[in-house]
């Protein structure tokens, strides 16, 4: 692996200029020196997304699917057009298979309830992996406790890859669903989803993919992956919080009971009986976060205009550059060194607790995540209480990484 040529990065994707699209990263008043390396937790919003949300509030707001007046009709059209944008973004053919949720956690809970309570019985098994975020563990654990099913865990190797042989062995006639992350939020590993789906489907087992760290960072083609559910959050794709997406195959969604009941998800209600609406409305009870959905649509268009392939390539360059520079520091360990890896670097420095590292980096204006990253089983696997995590996105530059590395070196010096 040769040294990174800085020119290649600037030619392919001008992150310095992209940064100017993001007010929080280019605001000269107080954030001039902010090096934001926590996009894995939440990405920043470009000005045009903020403007779109403001414009909606100032000129377009009304409840959707209700009023017959112009404003409501227009709000409905704007909101529903985002469904088509998302379908295009994920290469989904049937727009009704795109469901708006509050976020990834909400969407996984939706499936765990609606799929789980319909199809999972005592003695059944659910397969997840050792590298899941708590939001792809706890809902399944709750389901298992409730119905008497068992959770099976795909082990991970020392470099942070799934043990595919073990995965094959775990799939049985008792397995009702596989729920696995597209990209590990701690280790950065990109899992071989297509292969995993094909294997599960050969045994008629559906697969849910937690795409919270996938969809923002690479082109996702649902028809190619062929997974049964794919989930991501708006605020990790440069959109606002409070909105997320659940893609689900019609065949499953139609057979699942609703998760939440209320307005907008019904055909008719009497005190004797309620008839549910068709998908996607069946899973969208109540007034949704309309402005957030519209903001998400704008964010997706922004990412598409830059190009997901270019973003992915840019992050790979940043990751390689950062990994090389960080591992030159004595006593620094990177957790997760799979060859196929996204822009996430978790590390520890001997003698410096990750929380102390995070606080000291913050002093230098470098924002990273420190802790267990809502993935305590991963911490247990690598026998650490916590790690420091830098995660990259399209607006990060090589200079950002230089600042990270120099700040890590300084923190280490304080403890030496």
């Amino acid at each position, binding site marked *: 692996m040769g040294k990174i040529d800085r020119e290649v990065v600037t030619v392919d994707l001008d992150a310095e200029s992209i940064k100017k699209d993001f007010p929080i990263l280019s605001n000269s008043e107080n954030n001039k020196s902010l090096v934001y390396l926590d996009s894995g*937790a939440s990405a920043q919003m470009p000005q045009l997304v903020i403007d779109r949300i403001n414009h909606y509030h100032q000129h377009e707001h009304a409840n959707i699917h209700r009023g017959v007046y112009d404003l409501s009709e227009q709000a409905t059209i704007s909101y529903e057009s985002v469904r088509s944008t998302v379908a295009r973004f994920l290469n989904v053919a049937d727009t009704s298979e795109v469901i708006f949720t509050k976020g990834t956690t909400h969407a996984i809970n939706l499936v765990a309830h609606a799929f789980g309570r319909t199809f999972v019985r005592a003695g059944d098994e659910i397969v997840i992996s050792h590298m899941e*975020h*708590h939001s792809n563990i706890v809902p399944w654990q709750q389901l298992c406790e409730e119905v008497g099913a068992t959770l099976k865990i795909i082990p991970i190797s020392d470099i942070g890859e799934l043990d595919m042989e073990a995965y094959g062995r775990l799939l049985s006639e008792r397995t009702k669903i596989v729920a696995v992350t597209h990209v590990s939020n701690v280790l950065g590993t990109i899992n071989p989803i297509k292969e995993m789906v094909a294997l599960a489907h050969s045994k008629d087992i559906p697969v849910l993919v937690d795409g919270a760290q996938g969809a923002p960072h690479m082109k996702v083609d649902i028809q190619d992956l062929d997974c049964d559910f794919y989930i991501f959050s708006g605020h990790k794709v440069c959109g606002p919080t409070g909105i997320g997406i659940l893609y689900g195959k019609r065949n499953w969604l139609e057979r699942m009971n609703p998760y939440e009941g209320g307005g907008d998800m019904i055909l008719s209600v009497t005190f004797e009986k309620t008839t549910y609406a068709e998908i996607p409305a069946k899973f969208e009870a109540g007034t949704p976060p309309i402005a957030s959905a519209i903001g998400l649509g704008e964010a997706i268009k922004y990412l598409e205009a830059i190009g997901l392939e270019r973003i992915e390539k840019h992050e790979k360059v940043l990751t390689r550059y950062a990994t090389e520079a960080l591992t030159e520091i004595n006593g620094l360990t990177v957790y997760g060194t799979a060859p196929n890896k996204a822009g996430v670097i978790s590390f520890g420095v001997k003698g*410096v*607790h*990750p*929380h*102390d590292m995070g*606080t*000291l980096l*913050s*002093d230098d204006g470098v924002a990273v*995540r420190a*802790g*267990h*990253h*809502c993935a305590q089983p991963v*911490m247990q696997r690598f026998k650490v*209480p*916590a790690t420091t995590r830098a995660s990259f996105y399209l607006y990060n530059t090589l200079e950002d990484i230089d600042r990270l590395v120099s700040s890590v070196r300084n923190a280490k010096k*304080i*403890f030496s």
Partner: protein
Amino acid sequence: MSSKQMYQEVILDHCKKPRNWGQLSNATHKAEGINPLCGDHIWVSMNVVDEKISDIQYEGESCAICMASGSMMTAKVKGKACSEAIDLTEQFRVLTTEEESKVEPSGLGSLAVFSGIRDLPSRVKCALLPWHTLIAAINSQSEISTEGDKDPVPGSGTKKG
């Protein structure tokens, strides 16, 4: 004071040479403190004679803020009456969590360096854990956690997830 300055002041001394480090073999009172969110895990053991802390030791695995706070705490309360230790704990809590205007000149001495923690709400629990473990030991609770009902600063914890 920047975090860096705070670290330089407390860490250079107490983290590299923690005072009263270890566990007393014949402790009359002891407790274990855990901050599950960041993995801090500590033990405080004491000998209490006539309501007075005649000896105290502290040990554990933790971040530097927790370690320095624990080290300085043992030095501060050793030889003091349990009631005084409880009073100092309250003073330390006010120092690290309340607005500056509410903090009165106190007997905390060099522990005043922790006032900077107020601006780092995610780290307050790290500084408070040894003190809450001290109180647990005085009350002879065997284990104290920074979460749930025992949360010293609800809502201020390390980022959940």
